[in-house]
């Protein structure tokens, strides 16, 4: 049937791309754990991914915490549950909004930058030049970025958690008239280690996914500027979708009953 052909072709192409990505990821992870390791390059990527993402992640977190407190107040006031706001803010930020929003922001900032940089290196033969200089591009370009993504995202999210909770605190105290001591006590009493840990695990996975998709699409980009542009778009879109999918599975792993 002619209608089945494009569906089948699309499905086969999806399977091929999945296999290709899996092989790429396996090769990259293998190079992350086998010497030689490049500490200087890992440090440089940690600064690029972690330090330079702090402003955008911090701003996202503080406004998210502020909006969350404000929205929860207007909703919870309908059934006199305003006292649950500190709990809602801290749980939402640490479990969900901190890692997911930081992940999406980093996907836009870092994933795009990685894909554009590696993609440009591919189309200008710089990756071929690395190879001819007996330097494995996976070790030199990809492993440092994956290691930096995996390690810096949890730190970024931990900072985002603190800033987000602080945003909720500021709005609750100065706008909604909460008692500062009671607000902090409720926040600290209610939050559990598992809430924070699940968020940090998500952050590590998202950091890996963002850098992996940036590297994968950049490394396999073709053509000239158009190819690099397409690689950048694909890196951000695929990383964002994967973040939302993996968010569900990790939540299921930690909290499903």
């Amino acid at each position: 049937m002619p209608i089945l052909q494009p569906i089948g072709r699309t499905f086969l192409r999806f399977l091929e791309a999945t296999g290709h990505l899996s092989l790429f990821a396996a090769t990259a992870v293998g190079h992350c754990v086998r010497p030689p390791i490049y500490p200087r390059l890992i440090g440089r990527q940690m600064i690029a991914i972690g330090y330079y993402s702090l402003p955008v992640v911090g701003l996202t977190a503080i406004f998210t915490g502020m909006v969350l407190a404000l929205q929860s107040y207007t909703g919870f006031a309908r059934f006199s549950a305003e006292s649950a706001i500190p709990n809602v803010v801290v749980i939402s930020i640490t479990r969900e909004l901190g890692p997911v929003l930081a992940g999406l922001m980093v996907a836009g900032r870092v994933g795009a930058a990685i894909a554009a940089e590696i993609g440009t290196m591919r189309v200008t033969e710089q990756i071929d030049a690395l190879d001819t200089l007996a330097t494995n591009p996976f070790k030199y370009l990809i492993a440092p970025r994956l290691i930096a993504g995996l390690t810096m995202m949890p730190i970024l999210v931990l900072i985002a958690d603190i800033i987000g909770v602080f945003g909720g605190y500021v709005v609750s105290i100065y706008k909604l008239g909460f008692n500062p001591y009671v607000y902090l006590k409720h926040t600290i009493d209610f939050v559990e280690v598992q809430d924070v840990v699940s968020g940090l695990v998500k952050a590590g996975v998202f950091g890996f996914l963002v850098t992996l998709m940036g590297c994968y699409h950049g490394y396999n980009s073709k053509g000239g500027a158009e190819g690099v542009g397409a690689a950048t778009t694909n890196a951000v879109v695929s990383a964002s979708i994967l973040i939302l999918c993996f968010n569900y599975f990790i939540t299921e792993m930690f909290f499903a009953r």
Partner: protein
Amino acid sequence: MSAPAPKIRIRGLHKSFKKNVVLDGLDLDVGVGESVVVIGGSGSGKSVLLKCILGLLRPESGSIEVDGQEVVGLAGRERDRVLRKFGMLFQSAALFDSLPVWENVAFGLIQGARKDRDQAKEIALDKMAAVGLGPEVGELSPAELSGGMRKRVGLARAIATAPEIIFFDEPTTGLDPIMGDVINDLIIKCVRELGATALSITHDMTSARKIADRIAMLYDGKIIWAGPVAEIDSSGNAYVEQFIHGRAEGPIEMQVRAI
């Protein structure tokens, strides 16, 4: 007495991209210390040939031997060991944008030969001097260089590790005739000083005549003529004659689509 074994020996090389056959049973020998230039039109597969030898592309079939060792399918440390014999000047120079010029030149020394950065920088500045670049250029970014300077930096990087074999991919393309001649002279000087084997690809006949000991013409995926540079004008091969004289009429038909 038998002839000495070639430095590079290629037999029956086939490489296609989907239905497009680029190399179709190519045979080529490059002797020790010899400078061979492969000529051919755009899209004839010259760059693909170099990339197959370097292992950047994998041929479907055929054999490539370097110093008698089969290199097709080599991977890991064994491939790195073979690659350390090579230096390459890319058509666009392919300098690393994120590194200053001196670090580009010293890259193979720091990453491949594991030399100390200070020692590598000293060697890099020496090599830059050999191609006519002062130490002040070493601190510039590749983006600040002109086309001719980029080629010189690329050449300095290609010779920095004192390789046994150097590849030149369209070394004069995009340069004015005077700068092209400067690059040709530098190539001859560097190759002679190192005693290296050189394999170049170009469609610039002035460059080919100047840097080659032997010229080979690639057409339709095969080497259709090879011989000393002095014999190219009397090759008796219609394809070679059309190419070296740059005539539109002849057995080589360019695929030109009507607008």
